[in-house]
């Protein structure tokens, strides 16, 4: 078998407008460019999202837990949601799409991500969604003028890869995806501490708020502990490959 799986070839062929175009797409793939960037889209649940470098490509693990979360909150009355580090917008767009009573704010430090997320909202005809630029590590973040706390649902897939692990990743990740979307400091846990601080802040979340955070393959215990010390109760959801992937927290 060649480097490219037959399936990838088929998808590239479907995306190509001519045989010559197909050959040029194949060449890009051989050089290591991620398939999703070449095709320019990634299905995410029932949505088809636009993707472009260097904004993080939505992962199947994320798709899985976001759908699981949607099942839980689907029939609740009107709710507001905040998505920290929204990237392509995938998580909060899927949730607003599946839950008619939900409206979402999404932030990202990268203006290109904010632009892409809003573009995707337009593409999917979702108007209960608004992305804006903000740095949620910054101490003034909670008083950002575009935010309207308290929020009922907090979701995030924050950068969680420790620096040492990042260096060992394959080129299609390292060369094409934004390091700021992936690097979670030396321990990989920096962003979870920041999120826990937000969660305990007066009136930032509503009293019965729920929180769902994606974590790295060996971080479930550490992140659960961080959230528990913020007086939250936690459940761990496994991903389809059996890896503890999502911390579900509530008061």
């Amino acid at each position: 078998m060649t480097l490219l799986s037959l399936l990838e070839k088929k998808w590239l062929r479907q995306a190509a407008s001519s045989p010559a175009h197909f050959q040029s797409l194949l060449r890009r793939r051989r050089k290591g460019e991620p398939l999703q960037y070449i095709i320019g889209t990634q299905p995410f649940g029932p949505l088809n999202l636009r993707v472009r470098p260097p904004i993080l490509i939505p992962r199947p693990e994320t798709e899985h837990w976001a759908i699981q979360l949607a099942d839980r909150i689907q029939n609740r009355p009107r709710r507001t949601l905040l998505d920290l580090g929204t990237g392509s917008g995938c998580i909060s767009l899927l949730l607003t799409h599946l839950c008619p009573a939900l409206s979402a704010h999404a932030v990202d430090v990268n203006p290109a991500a904010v632009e892409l997320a809003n573009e995707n909202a337009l593409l999917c005809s979702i108007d209960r969604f608004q992305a804006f630029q903000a740095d949620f590590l910054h101490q003034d973040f909670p008083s950002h003028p575009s935010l309207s706390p308290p929020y009922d649902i907090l979701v995030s897939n924050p950068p969680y890869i420790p620096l040492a692990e990042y260096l060992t990743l394959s080129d299609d990740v390292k060369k094409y995806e934004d390091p700021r979307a992936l690097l979670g400091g030396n321990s990989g846990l920096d962003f979870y501490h920041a999120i826990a601080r937000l969660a305990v802040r007066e009136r930032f979340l509503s009293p019965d708020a729920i929180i769902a955070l994606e974590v790295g393959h060996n971080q479930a215990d550490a992140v659960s502990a961080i959230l528990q010390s913020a007086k939250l109760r936690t459940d761990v959801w496994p991903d389809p490959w059996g890896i503890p992937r999502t911390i579900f927290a509530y008061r």
Partner: protein
Amino acid sequence: MLFFRPWIRPTLRSFSTFSARLQQQDGSRILRVVQRLIDERETTRSQISQDMSTPEDIARLRKLKESEPLQEAWDEWTEANKNLEDLKPLLSDPDPSMRSLASEEYESLDETRNNLLQNTFPSLLVPPSTTASLSALVELKSGAGGIESSLFLAELLRMYLRFATNSSFKSTIVAENENDGGGTKDAIVEIKGEGAYDAFRWESGVHRVQRVPATDSAGRVHTSTVAVIVLPLLEEKDAEKEELFSMSDVKIEVMRARGAGGQHVNKTESAVRLTHIPSGITVSMQDERSQHQNKRRAFQVLTARLMDQKITREIAERRATRNNLVKSADRSEKIRTYNYPQERVTDHRIGMSLRNLTSVMEGDALHDFISALKKDHEETQVEDMLRETEG
């Protein structure tokens, strides 16, 4: 260009033989059934209450409406018989011109009666299809014959897609595995639209191709096969109503190891496999780029397979209650041969041959096979019904 060979097999039931059989029996069997249905209709009518307001009345009125065409045909039949009786004395009238007029009229009445007996009544007795609303999932798998089989599969697939379009169905290739050496190893096509299942269901079985492969320099005729399975496809909400399976009985697996996964990996790993534990049915799906979509597709296929089993089971039960041993459809049975050297396609179930293979593969002659098979099926149903009322 198109000819039937109705006498090729003894099991054959073409329309003409069916009618011939009916005539032999003086149509008495069919008339008995019609008479019974008309009596039932009278009973239903007498049960309707004065103000026609109860829910039962509504059901009764619907039943009356449904059997209206049969009543009309029956009225024509009794009328024709009465006229015939009235005519009889005139056949021996002393006036020759009166006699000749009477005999002309007699012939015309006789024709009316025959037509009612041979065509109208049988077609009205065909029970309405219980699967009429269903769409179809058509699975094609290459069998004996290696690459030749894969090449032929790709051609059959094109034939089906064209047939679907011509019949105003919407088709989507749900899964397709190409063969390295050319052709298609296997494929699944979704055919959407009312009546799609009833149109395609007769394609289930083994299709055999006989021809000289391009690769055979000696020019020998090879025989290869492709297996076709046609499954009933339900709308998602209808599938839930059928309660074909419970989620706790389905094991969902994702393919291949993904290492750390999550942000660490951006390879597309979307393949999904379902196992329905009670039946042992497994479905793998990998053609879509998202796991969610593959899962949805896989559940669609699983639902269709279970629905298929259910329909087969129901047919078997109905037959068992009737106590008659009709051979059930066997999916490993060779149903059709495409003979290229002789330019001929033969359907072995009804012994029907078309002398123009190209019009089957590239034109619309598949319609001819499918309508003949449909008709054959309807006639079998009527026969079953007759046997039942006698048995």
